């Protein structure tokens, strides 16, 4: 096991490039991060009817998520217990059972083994199908339309895992009496370490004014995509972070309108009955959309692109991105959100295209021995860290640009990678709250 305590210097805001490159560290992440964290599996609208299923991943492990006959949702490893074949090879669909294409072992909607060809004649009487159901995701929790799963039986409940990030997540997903629905889906592959992208919605609003300058330049004046980038001259806003590595940032001040979804959506939200509904659900002082990442990679952007990235070795990741809309909104509002996302944050999106280039180059440069050891800087303060300031739970800074949430993400990462249990991890996280007067200046793992 690699000791990564030498590679992450929280106090001085320095990281070694090795954490983005090293294969051994990556294997450790699969064990310590991906087998332990809560991961988003599905949304109700992706599997609305009984028998509906989709394939997704927790880390590198393929997962079947299936709507049961009683309306509940279960998840299990998409791997046949016989010889390890993928049980289901379709992305999604509706099924009564799943049959492995290798030797025909069949599993029901819950992942229980229901049929083994030639069981009666070729297997011993002691063979019990009940012993060989697909490996279940042991813990699944439902939160406001979304289903989350973790392999770790000792993980805190999902809401405790969210911690102060719950307040900010609700700002995206809990605004609407009728809930939300997924209307579009995009997947693509990026040749870089998964943490580069995770870090961005957690913390990095600043890249926008450089990386995305071309898109902001050509988009219509008054459009949100242009505005949110060009507002860099007057970066009023706030960045927050939560204990288990979550973070986010947004432009604007408390009570200010947060125009994150284009003018059509702004006008819709400004309608008295809609504004009243949002205020009733969230409170009057909630204005917290922008970027948000729930560690490790459940990402929400202000224009309702919601995504999960799946790691594919230290040098590659898959982006799975859905477009969400308020279910009860008029069709033209839903359509404006959908088109905004497809033109900005899909593989052909004018914003996304330029992010990809940066990350690919950063990854490639890490092949160099000197480059890998040079280290990265995370020293932008923005504004002093405050805890539970006013209406903002968690740690936050009254400045939209800062590295605080990023370095908090890596502090959590360090603690996860060096803890053998959730209990140990939670103790470390409690001690390592950045910016508190009682916190030791340096994080000693």
């Amino acid at each position: 096991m690699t000791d990564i305590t030498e590679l992450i210097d929280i106090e001085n805001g320095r990281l070694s490039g090795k954490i983005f490159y090293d294969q051994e560290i990556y294997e450790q992440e699969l064990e310590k991060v991906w087998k332990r964290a809560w991961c988003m599996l599905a949304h109700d609208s992706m599997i609305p009817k009984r028998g509906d299923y989709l394939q997704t991943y927790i880390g590198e492990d393929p997962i079947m998520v299936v709507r049961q006959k009683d309306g509940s949702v279960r998840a299990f490893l998409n791997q046949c217990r016989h010889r390890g074949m993928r049980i289901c090879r379709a992305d999604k669909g509706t099924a009564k059972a799943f049959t492995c294409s290798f030797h025909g072992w069949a599993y029901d909607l819950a992942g229980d083994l229901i049929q083994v060809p030639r069981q009666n004649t070729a297997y011993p009487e002691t063979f019990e199908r009940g012993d060989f159901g697909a490996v279940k995701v042991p813990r699944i929790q439902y939160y406001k339309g979304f289903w989350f799963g973790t392999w770790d039986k000792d993980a805190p409940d999902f809401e405790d895992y969210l911690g102060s990030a719950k307040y900010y997540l609700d700002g995206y997903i809990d605004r609407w009496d009728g809930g939300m629905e997924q209307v579009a889906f995009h997947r693509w592959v990026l040749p870089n370490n998964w943490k580069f992208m995770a870090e961005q919605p957690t913390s990095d609003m600043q890249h926008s004014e450089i990386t995305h300058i071309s898109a902001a330049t050509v988009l219509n004046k008054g459009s949100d995509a242009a505005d949110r980038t060009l507002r860099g001259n007057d970066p009023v806003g706030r960045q927050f972070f939560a204990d288990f590595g979550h973070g986010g940032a947004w432009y604007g001040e408390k009570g200010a309108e947060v125009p994150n979804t284009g003018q059509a959506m702004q006008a819709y939200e400004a309608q008295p009955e809609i504004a009243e509904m949002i205020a009733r659900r969230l409170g009057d002082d909630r204005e917290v959309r922008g970027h948000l990442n729930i560690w490790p990679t459940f990402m929400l952007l202000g224009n309702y692109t919601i995504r999960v990235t799946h790691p594919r070795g230290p040098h590659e990741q898959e982006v799975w991105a859905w477009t969400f809309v308020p279910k009860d909104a008029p069709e033209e509002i839903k359509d404006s959100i959908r088109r905004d996302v497809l033109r900005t944050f899909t593989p052909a999106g004018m914003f996304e295209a330029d992010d990809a280039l940066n990350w690919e180059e950063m990854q490639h440069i890490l092949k160099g021995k000197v480059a890998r050891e040079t280290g990265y800087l995370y020293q932008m303060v923005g504004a002093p860290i405050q805890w539970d300031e006013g209406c903002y739970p968690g740690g936050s800074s009254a400045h939209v640009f800062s590295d605080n949430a990023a370095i908090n993400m890596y502090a959590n990462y360090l603690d996860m990678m060096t803890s053998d249990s959730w209990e140990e991890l939670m103790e470390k996280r409690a001690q390592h709250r950045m910016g508190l007067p009682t916190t030791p200046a340096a994080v000693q793992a």
Partner: protein
Amino acid sequence: MTVTTDPTTTDTATTAIPFGDPDAAARPIGATTDKLTALLADVDPAVERALTRFLHEEVQVLDDWKWGEWLDFFADDCLYWAPTQEERLARERSRHISAFRTSAYFEENKVQLKQRVDRLLTNQAWGEEPPSRARHIISNIRVTKGVAEDEYVVKSNFYDYRSIGQRSQDSITGERTDRIVRDPASPWGYLIKERRVLFDMSIILNKNLSLFY
């Protein structure tokens, strides 16, 4: 994001590609009934030759990074659409390709295409700066008569290669279905009213789709 015009909303069909004559290949032409003769008789050979050259000229303009000239190939009320695909079982095969106005990589009108062109011309579109070397290869061009007068449905296959940076390269294949109309007033004499680009990948294995297809 706001757009100033939005012709894409004028189409209410479930698919954006309702055009073309599906029975063209089966239609008897005089005494001759073999399929190939029928297909060839469907479209004036001079038109077929013109449209083939039209598409070859178009991709040359793309490969030369003459983005402004590329827009001349498209009608002002054009639709440039690229749906996504998913892995679906054969019994759900009709759902492989996303329906119009659901998941798409592109769903552009002329104004929006021009925005994308203008972005590449800012010299700050880092995904293509320094510019990539791209090669569009078009083949399997098949011209059939469209539904309207002077309208043609042209199917073609493409292989697009891109070399970018010192070592990065990617390629993508797919099918284009174009609805092209005769318009003597246009620079090329024809205009693309509608293009559907169907990429063959279900997960795009390229880091981005920052060019045109």
